């Protein structure tokens, strides 16, 4: 056990912040991904264009830049808007947590868009046809046949994205959010022992990864219930 020189609580607090960020980002990112996929598969050309632009921009920009731009840009833009529209001159805060979550979710959503799109398209067309042939409406087909299966098909891809995003939370330390990486840097600053603390951070991330992977495995098993061939015997 290395000597953390009193910083163990700080590391724990950082881990907690990392987890909070990851789990705050997840629902937002999934929602963005679903909307993005719906846009990209839409029959309206405008929506398709928007969806494609969203995916290409947020997959192409480094996360670090997205984080910084949102953090510094959003307040300026929001305040400018507020002044122009409502003549409001006060301070509109986009807290680092919200900015960080937003930035991570935008990136996550861009990748998730592609995962969902792939999943939608992977569902055999015949299944929708079978539902249509019974007289179901498009909405019913989506709700009853397509969507429930999308989840199952998208899960592995989403799991990967989640693991990547959990590590990307390290990037929001640049806007002062005290997640694990930032706390580690504080500790390094005080103790001047980079190796001990960076390695500890690495091990904490690995632990989180293992736990996330195990959860994911359980979820996939559940989602595939009834779809795997029966065990012999």
């Amino acid at each position: 056990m290395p000597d953390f020189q009193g910083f163990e609580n700080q590391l724990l607090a950082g881990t907690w912040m990392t987890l909070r960020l990851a789990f705050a980002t997840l629902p937002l990112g999934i929602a963005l991904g679903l909307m993005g996929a719906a846009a990209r598969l839409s029959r309206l050309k405008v929506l398709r264009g928007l969806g494609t632009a969203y995916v290409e921009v947020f997959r192409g920009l480094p996360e670090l830049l997205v984080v910084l731009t949102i953090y510094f840009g959003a307040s300026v833009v929001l305040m400018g808007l507020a002044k122009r529209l409502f003549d409001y001159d006060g301070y509109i805060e986009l807290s680092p947590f919200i900015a960080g979550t937003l930035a991570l979710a935008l990136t996550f959503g861009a990748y998730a868009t592609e995962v969902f799109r792939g999943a939608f398209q992977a569902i055999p067309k015949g299944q929708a046809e079978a539902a249509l042939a019974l007289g179901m409406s498009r909405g019913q087909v989506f709700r009853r046949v397509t969507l429930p299966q999308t989840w199952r098909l998208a899960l592995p891809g989403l799991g990967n994205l989640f693991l990547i995003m959990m590590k990307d939370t390290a990037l929001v330390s640049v806007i002062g959010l005290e997640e694990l990486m930032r706390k580690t840097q504080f500790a390094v600053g005080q103790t001047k022992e980079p190796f001990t603390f960076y390695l500890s951070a690495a091990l904490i991330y690995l632990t989180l990864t293992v736990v996330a992977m195990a959860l994911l495995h359980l979820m996939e098993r559940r989602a595939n219930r009834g779809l795997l061939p029966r065990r012999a015997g």
Partner: protein
Amino acid sequence: DPLRIGTEGAYPPFNEVNENGELIGFDIDIAKALCAEMAVECTFVKQDWDGIIPGLLAKKYDAIIASMSITEEREKTVDFTERYYTNKLQFIGPKGADLTITAEGMAGKTIGAQRATVSAKWAEENMPGVDIKLYDTQENAYLDLEAGRLDAIIADQLVNYEWLNSEAGADFEFKGEPVFENDLIGIAVREGEDELRENLNAAIKAIVEDGTYAEINQRYFPFSIY
């Protein structure tokens, strides 16, 4: 509303974070004294150094108390109070290393400085042709000096002083005379916020006069830095 004060948290002994996650240091003590003097509630916001002025402009806080030098360039963007301490810039390097602090003498050497500081600016202007490495935090610069990647660091004399006195800095020493004597450290506020600036000025004056300042000074340095 409480007064929100932006600071960095990675600049010992002026501002840093202890193992309980609290901000400590000279800047923080001064800030608390000023708030007490002005009878306002204060909160601190930690912010990376190279985003600290954009953060002020984006109204993420109202004043920067983070050992920021008053420079002409910054004054184009923000307003400063009177100084609350005076600093000098001075090089440090490994004990025994033979360094001549001129552009010619440093040719072929590598010097480190924190990005977006007076030190960085001074080095860029006065050490043409010398390899200057810019760090996100002063701490990382020290780590690289220890590692031997840097031949010298230019930084605030007082910060260097504190580091040289630490265990890590035992093998290093000041090099040459201070290169810049009149580095005045002030509190930055947004342009046009004259009321806040005047209040802060009055408070600085008050704590200097009533001895609070001297007491804080004493905790960190055995000599006056005002």
